[in-house]
């Protein structure tokens, strides 16, 4: 039994880190620019399909395919920001509705291009490590470490570099930041594009582990929003922790409680957090 539990915890960690990368995007766009991008899950799907196409069809090595996938997702994000999201800044309802429109359009294109048949590809890094009775597929470990590194670097970049300081200043007071010489328009677009690139990376890694379907985006955005709120919107490292908590609870929870309610744990968590700790698990008192 212990073996099964540990196995589920590890699965939960992998899934949770994927939730975390989406949550990071949600937290950054909403916390910094005030834009609500609920279509991030679809950017993840774009990244996933791009990675699958370049490895499985164009026969490129996976790292190159991954970079291309990130670039494509980032470019899609650039178009979406310039064309749509910059008009919805600080307007939740419009942002939500524009995202919904975008979700339908992107899913429609994906359905036409790739149909509903799930797309699989081989594990890029085959084999696994065995520790005692536990097997660790190498690809999963690599995925987790990569996501961990990216989230860590993002946090470091925001906390320590000049650009990060400018970004935080912008989040607090856009006008004051502009007066101090921050190019706010560029910065805002940059944050949205970066979050889409992150989602693209998540999608590429997801494609390496699981099978792709055009409808995968909705699940991830829901979990991403849950994880971001769990940690407190604006908390970058918390987004990863939120994702991990969510992933592990779901995986372990489904061992003991009916699996049908797997998606309910996150929701119950979410409501409880918002009611009793509105600033998030790791936030100070509001």
């Amino acid at each position, binding site marked *: 039994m212990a073996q099964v539990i540990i196995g589920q915890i590890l699965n939960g960690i992998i899934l949770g880190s994927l939730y975390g990368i989406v949550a990071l995007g949600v937290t950054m766009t*909403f916390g910094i620019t005030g834009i*609500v991008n609920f279509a991030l899950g679809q950017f993840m799907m774009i990244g996933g399909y791009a990675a699958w196409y370049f490895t499985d069809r164009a026969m490129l090595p996976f790292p190159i395919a991954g970079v291309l996938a990130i670039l494509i997702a980032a470019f899609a994000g650039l178009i979406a920001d310039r064309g*749509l999201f910059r*008009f*919805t800044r600080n307007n*939740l*309802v*419009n942002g*939500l*509705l*524009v995202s*919904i*429109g*975008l*979700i*339908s*359009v992107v*899913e*429609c*294109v994906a*359905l*036409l291009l790739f149909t509903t048949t799930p797309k699989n590809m081989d594990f890029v890094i085959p084999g696994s490590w065995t520790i005692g009775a536990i097997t660790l597929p190498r690809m999963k470990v690599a995925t987790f470490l990569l996501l961990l590194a990216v989230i860590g670097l993002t946090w470091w970049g925001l906390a320590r570099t000049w650009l990060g300081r400018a970004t935080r200043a912008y989040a607090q007071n856009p006008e004051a930041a502009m007066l101090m010489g921050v190019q706010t328009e560029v910065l805002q677009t940059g944050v949205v594009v970066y979050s889409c690139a992150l989602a693209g990376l998540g999608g590429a890694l997801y494609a390496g582990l699981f099978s792709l379907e055009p409808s995968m985006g909705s699940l991830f955005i829901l979990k991403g*929003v849950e994880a971001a*709120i769990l940690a407190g919107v604006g908390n970058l490292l918390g987004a990863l922790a939120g994702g991990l908590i969510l992933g592990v609870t779901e995986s372990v929870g489904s061992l003991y409680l*009916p699996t*049908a*309610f797997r*998606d*309910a744990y996150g*929701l*119950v968590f*979410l*409501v409880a957090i*918002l*009611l009793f700790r*509105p600033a998030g698990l790791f936030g100070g008192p509001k």
Partner: protein
Amino acid sequence: MKPLLFLLPLYFVPLFSGNEVVLTILIFTFLLGILAIGFNIVFGGAGQLTMFHAAAFGIGGYATYLSMQAFGVSFWLGHVVAIAIVTVLSILVGWICFKFRLKEFYFAVVTMAFAELTRLVVLNWTSVTNGTLGLLVLDKPTLWLPGMQLVRIEGTLPWYYLTLTSLSGVVLFSLLLMRSWIGRNLSAIRLNEDLAQTLGVNTFRHKLFAFTVSNIVASFAGALYGFYTGYVEPAYLAVSQSLDAIAMTLLGGVSSTLGPLVGSFILTSLPHLIELSAEVRIGIYGAILILVILVMPRGVVGLFQGRRHVS
């Protein structure tokens, strides 16, 4: 009372066109219009973006049918049971949300979470709800009409008049509510909640009231919808159902009672006018939504109102 005048010509449509397709599209317009108007009581009225109306819509369908089966009562009495359930749930959810002062994004997320939880319960309570398959609703509502005794509402034409009359009733109710002192207090909350509170408006009670009433209207739409289509399924409670109503309201215009109706008409009839595959249709629907939000933020009705101030 202008929206009621717009509804008047619709009573004469069947005299000129017996076309089943036209009437069916209009029936769906009316049904979803009731849902959208219900949603707009709390969104257009009090400015709270709720995502719970799909849950109320679904419960309306399920509870009405199940209580008809369980107690052997008529549609209307069955719907009273549904209203009771929806009222209790709304007060519970609304009390939690408003007591903890959840606003905007967080209110939307928490009501969506509660709606999803409700959907999961309906989906997994297989012994009662028959899970994903849903239930076939073979009963029909009955009405007592003078001179005709009890009439079963069957066929397109009776349904057309039943749904149109129900819609007119809901429109009238919504208009009266918005013009009453309650409606004015709700407007005050929408425009500036802190100020409204300072001026002595009990914001908690008003929001809770609007939320509950809105959900009851949504449950009415759900009950009629389930009995018209002949089945109820968990998809009635899905987030996408909430989003449809929101899209209709926004497309038509938030600031008037007519808005949700116009939006419901456009979004219900458009897919039937253009022959397209299901996937492309959803894509076009999304594109329309984006264009409307960015190009005409006050909705279709707003285009015709010019710059006049709308209460």
